[in-house]
């Protein structure tokens, strides 16, 4: 394998891991739920993205055959992660989870069944 390609793959892999850890760290570190959600919503996605890119490159080099299978996974991750995040924030709002004091603006009340 060409050393620079190997290096690139290695780099992507390690970067993927680092992003995943940072995402997880965000999930642990931030003070309120809404902030915590930002970590995984982006970093983990990119972490996996990097890994998938590494995988794509690796197998391309190994088999000499370019294959875009990993694109499908990336596509799915990109479609689904925002939905998860969206529903989770909604749930957080519904549960009126504590926000840090610095937060600007207010989440409004989600319309409730009883109001109707």
């Amino acid at each position, binding site marked *: 394998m060409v050393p620079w390609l190997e290096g690139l793959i290695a780099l992507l892999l390690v970067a993927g891991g680092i992003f995943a850890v*940072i995402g997880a760290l965000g999930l642990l570190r931030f003070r309120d739920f809404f*902030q915590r*959600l930002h970590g995984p919503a*982006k970093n983990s996605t990119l972490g996996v993205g990097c890994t998938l890119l590494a995988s794509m490159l690796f197998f391309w080099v190994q088999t000499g055959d370019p294959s875009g299978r990993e694109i*499908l996974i990336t596509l799915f991750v990109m479609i689904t992660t925002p939905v998860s995040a969206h529903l989770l*924030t909604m749930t957080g709002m519904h549960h009126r989870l504590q926000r840090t004091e*610095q937060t*600007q*603006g207010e989440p409004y009340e989600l319309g409730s069944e009883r109001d109707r």
Partner: protein
Amino acid sequence: MKRLLPMPLLSLLLFVIWMCLTALTPGNALLALVLALLIPILIGRFWEPQPTVHRPLKLVAYIAVLIWDIIVANLEVSRLILAPRRQPRPAFVLYPLSLTEPFPITILASTISLTPGTISAHLRMHDGTLLIHALDVEDTQALIEQIQRRYEQPLKEIFQC
């Protein structure tokens, strides 16, 4: 034609993905073609009419921007996470939508969720607003404008709505 190929873009996407999934052989290509034609018909009943893409090239550009932004977003958020003492200044921002169709709005909302420090928290179709939670923002108005400029506008052009 419309009945045979109700969603050309979807069919194309399916064809491409199938070819990505499998080896490049004539047999697979034939199969991909069959599937690309068959699946849209199969799921036709479940497909509520969506605005179609009118400017495919713009879409490509949009995706490029998106990927770039995702990377940037990650670095920024990483910096925030890793910054030892700095507490971010989160905000709930009510974003006024000018898009009206669900499909483009969903793309916009997803884009927002995937890019710099923002998550689309709640969508209110009836008054056309999208509640956004931003992780670290100084000026909420600037954020709104940035989103309008960078994402919503291109989307409007792509879908012509």
